[in-house]
């Protein structure tokens, strides 16, 4: 029997639909012409110009500071939350699960707005700190979910085996639990990092003067029209994000 070609065709069409714009963007970042409609030959000029854009680097720096610190903090809190969720099964934990799960599905707009109102209400000055808090809020959820997934198929009899062989609870956790959970924790951290570094909507609400992050910078550059520069910048971002996602997937899939 001849297999239908339809699934293959649809798959290719979808892939083209998704990736063609990105491909065009990447190619255009090497386009010597200012206009993407005409090809002016290969160049690295935009990347060179990018190098001298102080504001972009400042924004990049802000983004990195926030992404690194927010993902580090949410890795710790998210992992602990996952443990609490896994270990206990009371009504409190069901509520906690709901609370941790909600940020994954709630519209970003709503979250950004409510965070903004909250920060204003408590009289906090909008700036890097408020962005950091906002990012930690949603990153915790992602980390907790990834780590919880690992915990759910973790064989806890090996912890008992370690205790049986003379390890106290702390040693067993460090020698056995942590090494086996590490891929999950790191994957959660990388996921948090990528989410934080390119978050626009929530950041847009809670950012203040002087705390512009890269996505917001790019947005305002588009308004003032500098597409070739943005193409170059986006390409760099694309490569970084791909790397992070690739490493994170590699770690999650690694056999236990």
């Amino acid at each position, binding site marked *: 029997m001849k297999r239908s070609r339809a699934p293959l065709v649809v798959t290719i069409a979808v892939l083209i639909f998704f990736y063609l714009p990105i491909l065009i963007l990447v190619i255009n970042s090497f386009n010597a012409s200012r206009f993407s409609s005409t090809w002016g030959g290969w160049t690295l000029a935009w990347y060179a110009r990018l190098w001298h854009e102080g504001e972009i680097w400042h924004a990049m720096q802000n983004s990195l500071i926030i992404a690194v610190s927010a993902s580090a903090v949410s890795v710790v809190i998210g992992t602990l939350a996952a443990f609490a969720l896994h270990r206990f099964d009371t009504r409190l934990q069901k509520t906690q699960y709901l609370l941790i799960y909600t940020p994954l599905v709630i519209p970003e707009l709503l979250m950004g707005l409510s965070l903004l109102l909250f920060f204003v209400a408590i009289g906090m000055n909008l700036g890097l700190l408020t962005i950091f808090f906002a990012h930690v809020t949603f990153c915790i959820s992602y980390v907790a979910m990834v780590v919880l997934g690992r915990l759910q198929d973790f*064989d806890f*009899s*090996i912890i*008992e*085996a*370690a*205790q*049986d*062989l*003379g*390890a*106290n609870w702390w*040693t067993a956790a460090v*020698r*056995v639990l942590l*090494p*086996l959970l590490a891929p999950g924790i790191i994957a959660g951290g990388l996921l948090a990092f990528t989410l934080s570094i390119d978050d626009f909507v929530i950041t847009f609400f809670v950012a203040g003067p002087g705390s512009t992050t890269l996505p917001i910078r790019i947005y305002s550059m588009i308004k003032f029209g500098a597409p070739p520069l943005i193409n170059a910048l986006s390409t760099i971002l694309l490569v970084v994000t791909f790397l992070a996602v690739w490493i994170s997937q590699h770690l999650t899939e690694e*056999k*236990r």
Partner: protein
Amino acid sequence: MASTNYLEFENVSKHFGSIRAVDRVSLSIAKGEFFSLLGPSGCGKTTLLRILAGFENPNTGRVILNGRDITDLPPHQRRVNTIFQSYALFPHLTVRENIAFGLRIEKRLKKEIDTEVDRMLALVQMEDQAHKYPDILSGGQKQRVAIARALIKKPEVLLLDEPLAALDLKLRQRMLMELDLIHDEVGITFLYVTHDQGEAMSLSDHIAVMNLGIIEQIGTPAEIYEAPRSSFVAAFIGDTNFFEGKVTDIVGHEYSRLTIDGFPDVLCFNDKHISAGNPVFLSIRPEKFHISRDAPPNSNKRNIMRGLVEDVIYQGLLTKFWVRVQEYRLSIVQQHSRFLLDEKPIRWNEEVWISWHADDSFMLERYSESDEQLVSLPPENIGDVNGEAATPE
């Protein structure tokens, strides 16, 4: 024995909600012996083992090891080690690192650890697998690593929770022999948990038969097989034919006559001095019968009766017969002591003589309700598919 109470459970109970997983268990185990806990699944064997390892706190009772009360010690401070049923090897460590784990925790010198690990690898014959990770090992190999990992700690007691249950039959028999050899070689006290009577019988110095959290009987394999003290033990260990009867009179000092509905009167050894009029169970193991075409020589201690062969299963080493005597169908096993082909074998639908010595059967008092249940629920390997052997029809 001088050191019968090397390991002692004193009145140990563990409840999970309304379930009494372990119910007032008292046990004494001698140093160096191979001791088995035998019982059906769910009878509390694992729970008792976990109490000894320190993973469960008993609700009542004490555990004394080598003169020291260890009831309240955490697991890592007890000198006992466990072979877990699922092996519980560390997946992120190689065979060598798995075995070394216990000594690394003790922060022993690297050289010392290396020699010990080498010795253990040799003991379980895993020298050439030392660098592999557990997930590519076979079941039997994982088993060996688990044994080596526990033994390297030189525990005072080695706990084994159904260690062979996950292996296939052939490997099981081989590991059975290896466990026996390892026990002889290391001289450590083994506490072995199993639901398989064959394993327990062939390895143990002593067996404790458990049922519903209670110890039914403790004894050597022979004592438990030949002189079970409850109908549960009689039915759980080996096959047997059960009869419900009543003592009618006492014959001499040690024998009594029983009447059984739908069966001839029988003479039975009565060491328990059950008096006339009491209801009893009579149990006769299949191999205790003698079956023949000619009448056996008369003797006053032998029960002799006629029966009709209803089924014959030839199994090489032995032959199984189903013989009807009045309302009962008896399960009888005969071993072939000589070459049979020159004799005419007993066949289906033949009238035969069956006999057994009064000393070869035993009586059990009927007192509890669980006893009553047993007659209608004979063990699996007695009887035909309906489990109707030796029950009146």
